[in-house]
């Protein structure tokens, strides 16, 4: 097994097919990363929303207790 290209420039060029190969690679990476990042962000957002809801609920209970 040996490296098929002599230098980085040749690897980028891919014998004239560089545009096709590298655009496929870039889109693939973008989709893979997107599919990982999106649920991670959502996870955080949903958790903080639930946390806020809980805090609000707690506050309301406390206020209700003081009023009574």
């Amino acid at each position, binding site marked *: *097994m*040996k*490296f*098929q*290209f002599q230098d980085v420039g040749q*690897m980028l060029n*891919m*014998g*004239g*097919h*560089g545009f*096709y*190969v590298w*655009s*496929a*690679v870039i*889109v*693939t990476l973008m*989709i*893979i990363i*997107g*599919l*990982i990042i999106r*649920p*991670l962000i*959502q*996870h*955080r957002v*949903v*958790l*903080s929303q*639930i*946390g*806020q*809801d*809980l*805090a609000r609920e707690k506050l309301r209970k406390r206020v209700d207790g003081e009023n009574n």
Partner: protein
Amino acid sequence: MNWTWFYRLGSPLWFYQMTTRWLPWLSLLAFVLLTTGLVWGLGFAPQDAKQGNSFRIIYLHVPASFLALAGYFLMATAGAIGLIWKMKLSYMIMKSAAPIGAALTFLALFTGAVWGKPTWGSYWVWDARITSMLILLFLYFGVLALQYAFHNEESGNKASAVLALVGTVNIPIIYKSVDWWYTLHQPSTIKLTSAPSMHPDMFHPLLVMILGFYCFYVVALCLFTRVEILRRERKTAWVGELAARSSNAVEGAKQ
């Protein structure tokens, strides 16, 4: 016979805890496999005699197409399990599988198009496999659209599960008829027959990429499902604790 293990499988809490434990390792495995396969395939695999370097797109196209199709069957199976055993977790997995599958189907189409340009001189041809892939993308769109159309989550789940199942019955029919249609209209200049046997030096990186894509798929599916679990189980005590703990951690970091 003791069936409690089966019902434990359906517990969102159990799923959440298991994935918390195993996801880091699986992500690492996916990362290593994908990086190895990509470097191997792009840099070290020998050139194809006819197609030159553009053939290297195979290392992205084939795994994506595999998972696009496998993902649909997984989605339909999860939907069927949800319908039969009324398992909440199963519906959550089904719901998570739809956007991932659609994204991977799109990826398969895109990589196919950029592979087609240098190989056949055109980004798009109405080839049997490409057309079938496009129809698969439409099937995914249908399931996604149906899911989001219902305000009542329960009805939305059931409806999209049935649609996924109807689609599964139809996929073989669609594939067969598109195949037949293609032989009817086949343009003589384009022959889309892959090499009957791949050289091992070319095949091994492909195998690594396929494995890597499978691991990545499982990771993404688990991540999406975890979000769905939090959303649906927001009223339960354990999610409340989790939220409280994470907001405490955020406040701690602020101070």
